[in-house]
């Protein structure tokens, strides 16, 4: 056992260090005080920033908890639900802060198949069995009692398609602790428990910190922890949502495995390192909040807790149709900006944005890096509308049943991102023709030439000239690759075989039985927040370590 003086300095020495530390703080303290916001509606006014000498200084380091107890490692594994704790919210709607200073949180790690986009099943690694992990809400000074079992060696019934069990860890950006103790990696079957006290308000990322960290984050191991100021936020809002942007880097499974007939996608290591995602999404889902818009009402004040996970790209977060009344960078009200159109967030960067819904309508959340938006970083706040009929100009469309063919899926996603401003599938003509049954009207060779080089076709091809005469607007050259054209044509072919014309809503639903609805597979129910309610998972006789491919055999 270490001598007592090593673990805890004598009180006199500690007091001397404290005095010296405070003196240093005084010397470094800014001379100007920050005025509280002019139009705070409720709550206490923020104290003067940087005034370390005041008795109510919220950043007084001497009052912070900087002596957490050592983490405890055990071989006793959790069973049952993968996420537990009253401070957790399982989806974007953030529950209010729960009473009580002590918050017990359990987030176990799992490997599971998630659906990123319609028809895109991805082999993910999770906290709490969902991507992103549950939202944690606490406040400065709370005691967080965290525990986590690495349950990556448990698998759902059926064919084993998830990644091999591996070591995982938890890194809370909200905590001030020794990472080599609290954030250590644990093997499958092990449980780690530790406590910490959030000392600063903010919107913090949590993630797996096990090497290769990039792969662990890109595979889905992240979430957000909201830490309120000790006295709450200085404004009052009607709605609170957590928006978590992240990137997915996918490729088709080299083993060509399928999930209920749909191709399995796995992490593409080359894309990860090249920072070239295939999907950039909000809350783990391509166009997720287009499919299921967030709700608000005209006149309401909305607070979004926005986190850009990355792992590698930035977000230029914007809400079409409104202006951020307040932006609190990193989620701390002391870092306040007013009247912002966008907020720029690097990887693990965050902000709280508040705005007013001026009138009934669909307010589009978007990463204004539009290359990211076209990859799925789109969402809608439906205020006084159903959210169904959306403005295609902003590339926001409801998800529909998906093809089971991977090539057609990519064509569908590309079409819905780039073409709906001018075209529909079975929704009637717009600037350009309705493309329903286009594969029956034109042969594939013609469609390929048309998509590849419409300007040349307009000079020489009679059909193309007729189209221009009818629609007046020339089809622009989209600079599509041959592969992209094959994907479009595959989607058109699928649509012509499966779409059932039903009014003008876009996209049209598929015929019954021809495709799985989004978010659902035959063996794995759609993302049901909270838990995989399968009792077999708690049966130790059914746990088995899958054969490990071993990345470096």
């Amino acid at each position, binding site marked *: 056992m270490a001598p007592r003086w090593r673990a805890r300095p004598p009180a006199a020495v500690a007091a001397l260090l404290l005095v010296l530390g405070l003196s240093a703080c005084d010397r470094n303290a800014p001379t100007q005080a920050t005025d509280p916001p002019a139009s705070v509606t409720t709550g206490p006014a923020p104290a003067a920033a940087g005034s370390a000498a005041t008795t109510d200084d919220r950043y007084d380091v001497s009052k912070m908890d900087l002596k957490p107890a050592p983490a405890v490692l055990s071989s006793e594994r959790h069973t049952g639900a993968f996420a537990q704790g009253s401070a957790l919210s399982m989806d974007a709607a953030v529950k209010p802060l729960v009473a009580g200073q002590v918050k017990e949180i359990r987030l176990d790690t799992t490997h599971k198949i998630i659906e990123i986009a319609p028809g895109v099943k991805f082999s993910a690694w999770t906290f709490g069995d969902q991507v992103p992990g549950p939202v944690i809400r606490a406040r400065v000074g709370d005691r967080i009692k965290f525990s986590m079992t690495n349950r990556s060696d448990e698998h759902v019934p059926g064919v084993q398609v998830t990644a*091999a069990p591996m070591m995982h860890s938890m890194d809370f950006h909200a905590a001030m602790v020794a990472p080599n103790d609290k954030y250590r990696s644990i093997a499958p079957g092990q449980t780690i428990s530790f406590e910490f006290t959030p000392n600063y308000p903010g919107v913090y990322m949590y993630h797996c910190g096990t090497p290769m960290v990039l792969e662990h984050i890109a595979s889905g191991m992240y979430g957000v922890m909201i830490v309120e100021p000790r006295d709450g936020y200085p404004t009052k809002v009607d709605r609170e949502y957590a928006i978590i942007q992240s990137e997915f880097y996918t490729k088709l499974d080299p083993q060509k495995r399928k999930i209920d007939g749909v191709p399995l996608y796995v992490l593409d290591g080359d894309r990860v390192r090249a920072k070239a995602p295939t999907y950039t999404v909000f809350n783990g889902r391509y166009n997720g909040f287009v499919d299921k818009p967030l709700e608000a009402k005209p006149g309401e004040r909305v607070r979004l807790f926005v986190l850009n996970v990355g792992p590698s790209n930035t977000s230029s977060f914007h809400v079409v149709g409104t202006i951020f009344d307040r932006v609190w960078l990193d989620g701390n009200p002391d870092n306040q900006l007013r009247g912002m159109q966008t907020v720029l967030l690097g990887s693990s960067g965050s902000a709280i944005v508040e705005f007013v819904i001026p009138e009934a309508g669909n307010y589009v959340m978007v990463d204004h890096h539009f290359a990211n938006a076209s990859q799925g970083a789109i969402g809608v706040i439906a205020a006084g509308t159903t959210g169904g009929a959306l403005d295609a100009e902003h590339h926001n469309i409801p998800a529909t049943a998906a093809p089971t063919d991977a090539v057609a899926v990519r064509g569908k996603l590309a079409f819905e991102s780039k073409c709906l401003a001018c075209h529909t599938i079975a929704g009637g003509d717009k600037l350009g023709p309705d493309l329903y049954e286009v594969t029956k009207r034109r042969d594939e060779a013609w469609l390929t030439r048309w998509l590849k080089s419409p300007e040349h076709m307009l000079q020489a091809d009679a059909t193309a000239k007729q189209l221009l005469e009818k629609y007046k607007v020339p089809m622009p050259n989209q600079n599509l690759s041959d592969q992209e054209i094959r994907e479009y044509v595959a989607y058109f072919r699928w649509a012509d075989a499966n779409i059932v014309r039903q009014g003008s809503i876009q996209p049209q639903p598929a015929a019954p039985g021809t495709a799985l609805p989004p978010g659902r597979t035959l063996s794995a129910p759609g993302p049901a927040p909270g838990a995989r309610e399968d009792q077999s998972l708690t049966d130790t006789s059914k746990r088995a*370590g899958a054969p490990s491919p071993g990345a470096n055999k």
Partner: protein
Amino acid sequence: MRRQACGLIALALSGAASACGVCIEDKVAATYDHGVVSRAQAEHHVVVFAALEGSGTPGTLTSNARRAAAKVRGIDSASIRTAQEPNPVISFAIDPRVQSAGAALQALRMHAKDRTLRITLLRLMP
């Protein structure tokens, strides 16, 4: 001779398993293979995780160590795993009835024929 002594000292001190800049568990995670650990447990073998240091590149260090490990008695050659990132590490399963983990690491170092190679035991599993 002096370098050899340094290497042996590093090995002797390996029980403390002090990591340099990166957590021990992080290094262990780099080559952790659940299949290897599960099989070793079933066969009453031990999985040895060790850090590699030396004058060579990470690639050279790990490839030399891998070749050397395959020649060591008691090591299951199919269980050998190496990683260059975040730091060069090697892991393998060994039958403790043939020789101990420490003895195996010393033998590995001798087979590697790299006088700059230092091997630090990180962890034994299970």
